């Protein structure tokens, strides 16, 4: 089995790569920092004795590049059975409000870039009638909030996109899974001070691996975020405005 990891320098992505490699899969690691992707590939090969390779990838590249990347990976390591769309970019909300180019960047990485590379992967999987696409979305995409709505809306759009893609590919035997992540202990949350438990990337990775194996379509991780978001989504807008979340 071959797994393609997009945004391989993310710790969640690395942890997922670890779990699949431990299960004996070949792994393609695609990242902007191709040197680091290659180091990650050596690591998997040494630890688990699997085939692994690093590839250059930028979410903001044109669709042709994404499509070429998928072909290149398949030539090197065989048909992609599982693709993980892990890259993401939180950006700076305030800076994005002041400079729209910054907001555009957040939207393009989290939404346009993700859609572009998903389309490229989907074509290959659709033609073979097999495969699984995993998208890392966020609880931030469940409700627009003053503090991070560029990121949140892009993730929300990604969630909707994955839903649509799932419906399109259902008859083609291609599985699409949306992971709505809460707080995971990565650079994105390193500065965060919160009373809410922050889960390790390793635990998140195991949950993602197991869910993909069982063909789960959408899930929250950590699970309790389902409850939290249930409450947050049910707060009337009038009140929500005053909560300054």
């Amino acid at each position, binding site marked *: 089995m071959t797994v393609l990891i997009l945004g391989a*320098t*993310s*710790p969640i992505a*690395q942890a997922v790569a670890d779990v699949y490699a431990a299960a004996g899969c070949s792994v393609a690691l695609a990242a902007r*920092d191709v*040197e*680091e992707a290659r*180091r*990650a590939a*050596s*690591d998997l090969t*040494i*630890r688990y004795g699997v085939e692994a390779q690093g590839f250059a990838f930028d979410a903001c590249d044109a669709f042709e590049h994404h499509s070429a990347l998928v072909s290149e990976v398949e030539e090197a390591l065989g048909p992609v059975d599982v693709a993980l769309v892990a890259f993401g970019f939180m950006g700076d909300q305030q800076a994005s409000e002041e400079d729209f180019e910054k907001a555009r960047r957040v939207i393009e990485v989290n939404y346009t870039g993700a859609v572009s590379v998903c389309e490229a992967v989907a074509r290959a999987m659709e033609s073979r009638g097999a495969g699984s696409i995993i998208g890392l979305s966020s609880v931030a995409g469940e409700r627009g909030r003053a503090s991070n709505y560029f990121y949140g809306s892009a993730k929300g759009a990604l969630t909707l996109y994955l839903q649509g893609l799932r419906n399109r590919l259902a008859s083609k035997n291609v599985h699409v899974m949306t992971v709505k992540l809460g707080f995971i202990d*990565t*650079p994105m949350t*390193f*500065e965060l001070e919160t009373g809410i438990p922050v889960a390790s990337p390793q635990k998140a990775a195991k949950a993602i691996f197991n869910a993909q194996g069982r063909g789960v379509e959408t899930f929250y991780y950590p699970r309790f975020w389902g409850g939290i978001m249930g409450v947050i989504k049910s707060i009337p807008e009038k009140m929500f405005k005053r909560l300054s979340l």
Partner: protein
Amino acid sequence: MTTTSWASRPLAGWGRYPIVEALCARPESQLQTLNAFNDRQGDAMLAHGFGRSYGDAALLSEGRVVLTRRLKKMLAFDEVSGVLQVEAGVTIGELIEVFLPRGWFVPVVPGTQFVSVGGAIGCNIHGKNHGHAGCFGDHVRAMEVLLASGEVVRCSRKQHDDLFWATIGGMGLTGIILNAEIQLQAVQSGAIDMESIRFNNLDEFFQISEESTGYFHTVSWIDCVKGGAQMGRGIFMRGRHASAQQAATLSEGPLERVVELVQRALDGRVFESNMLLNRATIRLFNEAYYHKHPAGEHHSVVGYQPFFFPLDAVENWNYVYGKRGFLQYQMVVPEREAVRDILKVISESKMASFLAVIKEFGDQDHGGLSFPCAGTTLALDFPNFGEPLLKMMDRLDALVAEVGGRIYLGKDARLSAEMFRRMYPQWEAWREVRDRWDPQGVFQSDLSRRLGLTPA
């Protein structure tokens, strides 16, 4: 543009004394490490591995700390020679887990497997096999170090050998070790063919120690509460890596498995209390531990974990000392008689050491800031009894320095600059090299400031 996430975190060594608030970054990649260095805004900097040094060696209260635990990629491995290149945040435990099944062991291991390769080099750690294998640094073939200039330089015994020398045992003060090439040790199994022998006093210890030079691993537990004729009684352990056949006899009974499960569920934090360890309970523990072992010699084949890392069985056991924390005093003295004087001071002080370990080192001496040298080493854990304890340690320092001994900086939280200079006569040679590679003193720690190795 700064790309690094900085967060203020409470940071402490294993003794949880002192605890400081430090501005930290936790890079996930080499590039992020370089970015953190460039984003430090002129502040001092220090690498922090797993904080298993006891005092303030891995702390930097005013400055920026790079947590290296996420830099854990294995970069290259030669199946034939056993040479491995890994990033500095990989732990000794991970190395054993990955390479023991392939017939390789880590050449030098400390008393816990939760230390990073960077920390093992920074403190130039020693193990139970010092007489045969030297220190961890003796098995390092090359390193890549991020220097104060911002450059990444490869060093080895042939290339920038001064930097290589000063970085081994350099307490993180020459730069950030990004990765290292280590020569692993070929073994038939992870199991240890071991003998344990109860001894009644210090003379018996030295006698058994002399008879045991043929054993690869030696270490002893010693009762530091008992004075008088039985002063220095304890249990001597010696062993070798078992053959594959011997290892096959190693079977885990149902009882061991239950014990293991209970231990895994235990967490020292549950017992966090200043009251638990006092003179009475410590005396009791030492009595019980001594008598648990039958008199004479006992032979067994055991797994590597209980042999090398018995304390790892209970997670966070350091919390058992309570909020006040604890201090370890580890020293080496070239003369045996000095050990007796030191034990006397301790047993008369009425300040009990819960765990004490004694061992004779081999002749290897790396120099610089590296600790091990020929002689007897004694490591003692004391609950933080405050001023009286610090006073006694000052007395011990004087005894140790008097005979040309020294204390281990990786365990230290309180040595004075003056004593440090007496104990480490090569400090100037070391500083000369450090000044060549870090003239501004970018790399600092609370320890280096206290010892006068960098401006306070």
